[in-house]
């Protein structure tokens, strides 16, 4: 799953971008083109840095993983077998 789109939308001013592949560094992040040619920018105002976006991606990924771990823990406490938990998750 790509966390890039979720991460950039958490920052103020994201106006949309063409993203053939998720960027992996500051240069690729800065090279993104506006989504629509009726506006010539990706960010309204100051763009976050790639480091900030990457940190947000990691934060969102960790939150999702924690949510799955919490579900698993709850099912284990209920006495479900591994096979049953795997079927639910």
């Amino acid at each position, binding site marked *: *799953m*790509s966390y890039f*789109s*979720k991460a*950039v*939308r958490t920052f103020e001013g*994201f*106006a*949309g*971008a*063409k*993203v*053939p*592949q*998720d960027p992996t560094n500051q240069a690729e992040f800065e090279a993104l083109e506006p*989504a*629509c*040619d*009726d*506006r010539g920018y990706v960010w309204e105002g100051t763009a976050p840095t790639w480091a900030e976006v990457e940190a947000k991606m990691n934060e969102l990924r960790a939150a999702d993983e924690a949510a799955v771990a919490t579900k698993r823990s709850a099912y284990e406490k209920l006495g479900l077998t591994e096979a049953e938990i795997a079927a639910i998750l």
Partner: protein
Amino acid sequence: MAKIKVDDLIYDNSGTDVTLDLTTAFDNLGKAIKIHHFEYNTRTGTAASADVNHFTWTTEFSPVDAANNSFVITASVPANGKSQDWTGYGLRFYGNTTKDFVSYGNFYADQYSGYMTTYGMHYHLGAGALPTSSNQTIYFRQYTANSEPDWFCPNSSDNSRLSAQTRAFLTITEYKN
């Protein structure tokens, strides 16, 4: 059912065989004037705010005669969902006037992020509904906040089953009855 008027049939029995010329008859039936077609195939993410153009289908839509012809509009845009239970989207035609068609014939399914869905539409516009100028811009547009997916036109970055870049198509059949 389409019917041909007897008066439109040209009947020729001057030779050995009897022939019917159907040209006039079919000219008077409804017919397609032109099929306009456009494609968009770049993975694109947009803002969550209202009144945002997601992407541009074309800057060269030139109806033959928008004042007198009618139009059947069909579009299908593959997307990676974003758990939007509801979505308000449509087309904006920008020419000598601006015409918006929000929530016209939309078909959409709510999907979680990471799951494929479609932003589609199929509808009819009568004569005079569209701008009449040439080289119009057509935008795929979000009219209400939080109507966007994670990505339009997802690709293998989203899931390996998308071995090829997904493509969106807009087909506009201009016709006259």
